């Protein structure tokens, strides 16, 4: 089992949800409005006057293979709309309910 943490420009919301549906990833938690900035480049997403965009953040736990496919798909998506901003992190889940 892997935990996947995705933070992305708010306007990618529906695209990501569609991707989850398509990959039949059922469980997730989403914070509709988060703020943050990327580690390397891109505009910050602060929801302020200077940087008005905001992020959405998803934390989802899934099978290992699904996580791999998801990451691939996300990479492709990010390549298409790089300016909207996206980061994803994957780590192991030790136990679950």
């Amino acid at each position: 089992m892997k935990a996947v943490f995705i933070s992305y420009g708010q306007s990618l919301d529906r695209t990501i949800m569609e991707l989850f549906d398509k990959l039949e990833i059922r469980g997730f938690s989403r914070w509709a409005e988060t703020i943050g900035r990327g580690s390397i480049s891109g505009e910050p997403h602060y929801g302020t006057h200077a940087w008005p965009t905001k992020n959405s953040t998803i934390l989802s736990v899934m099978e290992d293979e699904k996580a791999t496919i998801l990451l691939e798909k996300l990479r492709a998506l990010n390549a298409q709309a790089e300016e909207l901003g996206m980061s994803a992190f994957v780590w192991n889940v030790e136990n679950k309910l």
Partner: protein
Amino acid sequence: MKIYEMSVRKPISTILILVGVLVFGGYSLTRLSVDLYPDIEIPYLTVITAYPGASAADIEQNVSRVLENNLNSVSNMKRLVSSSRENTSIVALEFEWGTNLDEASNEIRDVIGRIESQFPDGVQTPMILKFSSSMMPVMYLYATAEESYGGIYKLLDERVVNSLNRIDGVGAVNISGAPEREIQVNVDPKRLEAFRITIEQIGQVIAQENLAIPAGAMDIGSERLAIRTQAEFNYVSEINDLVVVNFGGREIRVRDVAHVSDTIRTMTVRETLNGQRSVMMIIQKQSGANTVDIANAINAMLPELRATLPPDVELGVLFDTSTFITNSINSLTETVMYAFLFVILVILFFLGRWRATIIICLTIPVSLITAFIYLMFSGGTLNIISLSSLSIALVLVVDDAIVILENITKHLERKARPKDAAIYGTNEVWLAVIATTLTLLAVFLPLTMVGGMAGILFQPLGWIIAIVTTVSTVAAVTLTPMLAAYMMKYKNAHTYKGLGIVFKPIDAFLDKLDHGYARLLNWVVNHKLITLLSTGGIFVVSILLFSMVPQDFMPAQDQGQVEVSIDLPVNYNLEQTVAFAERLEARFMELIPEIKYLAVSSGASDQGGFAALFGNTGVNGVSYTMILKDRKDRNRTQQQLEDVVRAEVDLYPEVTTYTVGASMGGMMGSGTVDIKIFGFDFDETTAIAKEIQAKMREVPGAREVNISREDMRTEMRVEFDREKLARFGINTATAATFVRNRINGLTASVFREDGEEYNIVVRYDEEFRGSVDDILNIRLMNNQGATIMLREVATIVEDFIPPVIQREDRQRVVTVSVALGDGVPLGTIANAAREVIRETVTPAGVTVVLSGSVEDQENAFRDMGLLLVLVLLLVYIVMATQFESFSQPLIIMISVLFAFTGVFLALWITNTPLSLIALIGAIMLVGIVVKNGIIIVDFTNLQRERGLPINEAVITAGKSRLRPVLMTSLTTIFGMMPLAIGAGEGSEMWQPMGIAIIGGMTFSTLLTLLVVPTVYATFNIGRAKKERKDNMIEIE
């Protein structure tokens, strides 16, 4: 869910709400009637009191003063004016605009009830008269005839007037200039003398022989029959055979002493149309009825009416006030359409995208149509004020949609899905959009609170623009994202294929513009001192310009009509008046080929009517009504032609006074400069008035310098010697009646024919009433039948009628009024008048003040000044809260300063005086130009917050905001273009506003783009605030 998210997610609801608004607005539009101005109640009430037999001075002392002293307490009253003439006192009360006149007249009635007992015996109950717009004629019809001329009154009265009266909303129809049938018994006084008969005896005989008396009823058998004695004349000739007296055993009949003629009444008025004898029908409307509706109904009825008249009678429309109204409204509608088109073109030019242009332009009809809904609920009409407001609102409604769509496009370019782009794009800017709308409201809501006459013009304007811009903001955050979500697609740069080729040069141009501007801005920001000094220079120039632009109150309007009224010397009789009128008429026709109809009325109607109460009616007056050709068919304006008329009339020494002007121009006309001389002593004030008149005549541009106090008129007065009368055995009343019956005539009875009644008038034949001797030779008869000549008991003296005593605010006044020549601004003449007043030496107790339209203008300008301060303050507050800063709004307000400079520059270049309308344009500019400043400062702040150094931030922001600023400015400038060019009828009114807005906007935009960034950089306003050091946790 936020409102924009809801509208994107529920497109059907959004579209249907929109359709609902459109349908409701369209329905409201069909229910609105068309009129020239909003419904205005003219704030005047008049109290008319008759006191028969009293002189002007008596009336002043006993009636006018008593009324004035007590009416002074009536609430909301602005001015109290009275005029006292022989037999009548007229007290006019002027109220503040918008006063409820019903309440005011109740108050006046109470006052009169309280003081009536103070009046001397013989003063009749005062009558309260209300002026109303319904007294203005709606339409003049003319009828000309050849064979039927004699009977035209009856024809028109029966066949035309009755039908017209049946039209809904028609108040009164008066026939003027038609001959009326009269049966005249013209007596030879020598024969009367010979047979010892009097006129009164003949009158008595005629009255007694022309009778029908019911004699009761009788039962005959089983029936009850009415009995009636019938002795009415069947033919006029029967009068000839009546026996008046037995004289020496001979029956003396009427034909022995008089000749009876069935003729038309002696007319004291002669009406012609284009030189042909004519009859005028004046149609007035009922209060509250719609002029255009009535005129349409009358026009529709005319063919039907013509069919009922004999073929030689020609019936036509001389003047139709609705034509001016419909033409004005049509030309304004055209203006709105052109503005719409220009706005679309500007947006397309800058965006280069069809879909985006459509989305933005859709907010225009949606927002504008709500104005119709407002008008329907507020009981308004489609008038030149509401339509001009629409044309102004039109340029303001697209701005919000432009900002929102621009941000949505930014998200689309980052490859967000259209729906998400629409929602999040709107989310980022919607608060800023609402803030800019608030600045507009800060300008237009105070307009709805303007009082006075200006309020009538600007209250609807304020409401309409406030409502429309608010709705446009709502549309921008609902309709625009919704449409963008479904219509916009991510698109690459222009491919320039097919029709798209037109964008190639445009894109190149815009790119060049961006670069050029960036370079210029860079230079300017690095040469701050020069920039700031030139800004100061411009400020000085604008103050100079302000003093150079002349001031005016209201722009003069071309209504396609010139009214001339001329007074000839008092002793002119109708023939002389007509001869003069014809001579001048021929000259007018020669000088002014622009005339379509020329109606001339010489002399005065006997009945006088309403006009006789106020004007001087006598056979020595002539009035001309010139109806000009359509505006597009002539080169000279009404005002130019008025000057032509004045120049011509000035050539005739016999003209005592004259006025030239349009009848409808009372309220909205260019007005007059009045110099009022207050003082009790007639001779003193008249002398000063004459002196001022002479000086004012020298002033270039001053026309028709008239004095309100007329010269004394001559009259012949019969003065009886009461002693002698008493000895002879008759009293003064009887003697006076004798004189009246012989000269004016005795209406003995009426002759009935076909249900109509015609007066039978007995008097001396015309040849016996032509000289003073004829009057002196009148024989009076006492009860014993003895006769005596008038010359034995009376003398005739020539005397002057004392002038009308005019008072204002309880003081005697004489007014010197000055009209304005073509293109002469009110302010110029007013300044000259001030100079003249300063030079005039006045004795103690006499004061000279400037009044008339100048007073209205000064009041209105003062109100506007106050309004401007209020508007600036409100705009400042809105901006300060938006930026949470005291200093940034001040930088933005530099653009307001440039706007005013631009206004004065544009007015000066186009030679337009600064009128109330131009001033209101300047005030509106406050709301419009600060938008540019807000856009620039806001974006510069943003760059600073993102950490750019000051100069870089200023240049980046300027460069990226150039297009939005140019786009909103150019939509305003081009949208105002049709108004400023003003081609149609009635366009003169709003032309100064168009010119002011274009001038202010252009100048302000150009300078705002350079100066605002420079000032921003100079004072480094956006610098990060230093946090206070207290309790600060240090981060190492």
